[in-house]
């Protein structure tokens, strides 16, 4: 049996490890079961406040176009640009997601999304809008597919 060696540079591959969606879901379920539903939201507020601080600043500086650019970027990274569409004006941004790439990946892995999985959308976007001139509402969410209709709007 020969020795096998694999060498890779970071630039050899695209960074896209969709199994992270499964681990994220497991984390949400764990917090829900071990602590509480409110703890899931508390964790997501803490995460979003810290990680999306630059996006929040960008929303204050540039307006809702910053949100649109953010979602265009992450859906492109997920190779799912066709799943999202936007209706944008300076005062309102409507986002329609036909099929969430995270939920699709979990289904392909035979994993059922947590009953609180929608909080990754709702709580995160509400937190991103806090202390900005804008508000957010999750108008519709289909837990089977992760399809959603979302609205960001000027207060």
């Amino acid at each position, binding site marked *: 049996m020969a020795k096998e060696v694999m060498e890779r540079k970071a630039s050899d591959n695209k960074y896209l490890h969709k199994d*992270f969606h499964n681990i994220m879901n497991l984390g949400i379920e764990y*917090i829900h079961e071990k602590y509480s539903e409110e703890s899931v939201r508390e*964790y997501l507020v803490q995460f979003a406040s810290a990680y999306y601080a630059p996006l929040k600043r960008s929303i204050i500086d540039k307006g809702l176009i910053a949100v649109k650019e953010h979602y265009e970027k992450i859906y492109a990274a997920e190779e799912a640009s066709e799943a999202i569409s936007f209706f944008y004006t300076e005062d309102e941004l409507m986002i329609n997601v036909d099929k969430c790439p995270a939920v699709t990946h979990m289904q392909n892995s035979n994993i059922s999304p947590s009953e609180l999985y929608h909080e990754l959308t709702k709580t995160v976007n509400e937190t991103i809008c806090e202390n900005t001139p804008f508000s957010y509402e999750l108008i519709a969410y289909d837990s089977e597919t992760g399809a959603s209709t979302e609205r960001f709007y000027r207060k």
Partner: protein
Amino acid sequence: MISCTEFIPAYSELFKYIEQKGGEDAVLEYWEHISRNGINQLRDLVEEHGIRGCYLYWSHTLNEEAADFTMTLDEEKDEFEIIMHYCPSKGRLLEIDHIEPYHNYCKHCDVLYRRVLESLGYKYFYDMSECDKARCRLKVTR
């Protein structure tokens, strides 16, 4: 949606949150939960292929994570080794200048994989001494 490309900071912040709720023991308990429920592919592959299962598992994950590594499988010696020249997870955390990584972030790699591999009869060595530079080394033997 939080993209899988944003998962690492979400994971690091989750460790911080759990530590706030229950201290370091609670974080360890969470890692053990992930080890039992989140990395079944590693267990399945090693059960089916022996030490080659490690090579198959990390070939998949490290390429998708765009890691900078050298991985060696020596089935004659029953040895498997990863030399991580630049860890994509810790590297990302170090590159994000507006959040502080969880203070013991790299330890999860020790706990998660050790629990699986030792339960299957393997020895697991993990050198975290250069984790602050996003470098580490792990070795699995019989």
